[in-house]
């Protein structure tokens, strides 16, 4: 079993098995979470991982910057360890950005089109 802590819900904790998507596991324990497509493509259920590890290989919605900022697509992500999250739109401060004012670098695009980051030798 993995312990899931929801930091922005008064650090409420839940025990999950880790063999099903976190959205399913948490909803079945009574957590009220937003969701949309339920296949990892639409970002509605995104939460911010503060501590721990998840497997979200099948998500296709996040670009690399969002992943680096800790976002997790709960409808497909499974807990690999104990995890702490912020959930809901309160956790979306870095999820949405104006794409004209704040463009992505090539390595920050979605995985299928991102280029490898250039390593600079000083």
């Amino acid at each position, binding site marked *: 079993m993995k312990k899931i802590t929801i930091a922005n819900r008064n650090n409420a904790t839940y025990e999950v098995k880790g063999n099903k998507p976190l959205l399913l596991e948490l909803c079945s324990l009574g957590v009220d979470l937003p969701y949309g497509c339920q*296949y990892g493509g639409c970002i509605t259920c995104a939460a911010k991982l503060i501590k721990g590890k998840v497997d979200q290989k099948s998500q296709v919605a996040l670009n690399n910057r969002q992943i680096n900022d800790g976002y997790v697509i709960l409808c497909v992500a499974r807990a690999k360890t104990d995890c702490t999250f912020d959930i809901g739109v309160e956790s979306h401060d870095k999820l949405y950005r*104006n794409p*004209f004012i704040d463009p992505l670098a090539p390595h920050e695009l979605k995985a299928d089109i991102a280029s490898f980051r250039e390593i600079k030798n000083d």
Partner: protein
Amino acid sequence: MEGLCCGPGYASPSEAIRAPSEKLLYTIAIYTGTGIQKPDYLATIDVDPKSESYSKVIHRLEMPGIGDELHHMGWNACSSCHDDKSMSRRYLLVPGVRSNNIYVVDTATNPKVPRIQKIIQGTEIKTKTNLSGPHTVHCLGSEIIISFLGDAKGEAPGGYLHLNKDFEILGRWESSMGDILFSYDFWYQPRHNVMVSSEWAAPNTFMPGFDLEEVGHLKYGRRLHIWDFEKKRPIQTMYLGEDGLIPLEVKFLHNPNSSHGFCGAALSANVIHFWKTKNGSWEWEKIIDIDNEPHPDWPIPIPGVMSALLVSMDDKYLYINNWLHGDMRQYNITDPHNPVLTGQVWMGGLLGKAPIVNGVKIAGGPQMYQLSLDGKRMYVTTSLFSTWDNQFYPEIRTNGGVMLMIDCDVKNGGMKINEDFVVNFGNEPNGPSRCHESRYPGGDCTSDIWL
């Protein structure tokens, strides 16, 4: 003659123009992506100026679950069934872009209080047709086709769901998608045996939000497709290039004999005009080009984002919006090659031209609109799509969407925002929601097609 003149809609566009004025509107409103854990709903809005509840939401039909993202919708029947007395314009088909569910809503039993008649489950659609991301709903005679932007996993190009008049899944409508890369909107003109379709992007690309870089990586559309409507397959591609980045809404003129049509390229903020030539092939040209506008906080000028487009029932006026600039425009298209700007109003937008309208602070810009059959009243809403709203107009979370009405001068041209009408979705009982597409019970300017 037996069987004639008893079906839905009108015998011709000119008869539609003479129909009684609309008294009710159905408008979708969403909570998906807003942080409010409530279902999206279909709002009934009183638009009868003689009514005490004029300009108010008088009923809310909640969907059974959260997370649908209701977006566009369409009728089960239109004027294409006018000769069929067994049909009536009774049901609105309301798809959820994210859930894939399609709600069949009965609006006839009690027009002010519509109710869900049937739910076509998104999972059933995926299993039977490998489609997801529903968008445009059109009826063709007594059958219904709905464009979907992706396969069951959200990858392009999607295809078309075919339903019978009892809303049973018949399968895929098209016999081939040809080499089409993306799907979005479509419209057909039966007397020319033609359908035209446009391109947004794969659901997995546009649903999470807009990354500008993905345009350069060819993740967004830039083509229009001409179809052999009877053979249900694409026959000609019009590559629009930089002039046609993200071609969204596409309409033919209402005159069923005409082959002229228009498409709004959202990111290029251009209107593309297309028509059939004498030798039967199709040509296109750019007829309107909205300049990007400078903004002190933006490193590059702001594109208009022409997300919708509408033709008046008399085919005299073309209406377009610039969602990021904040203006609605009216063009006289009597000569479709040479449109003439005849009207313009401002509401919201990022240029700061009209931050407050009729006492309401506008979060967003003019986005979806529906025009009365007589062409005089245009109802405009401000939300585009939850994730895109969140990127460009984050304040819409707390302010919600707004519906305004524009009085349109059909004789001399001109537009003016009506001062007596405003529906502030920021004041909804469950918290600020966002309004998008509207339909009228008696038909409107984006529903009816004539055979």
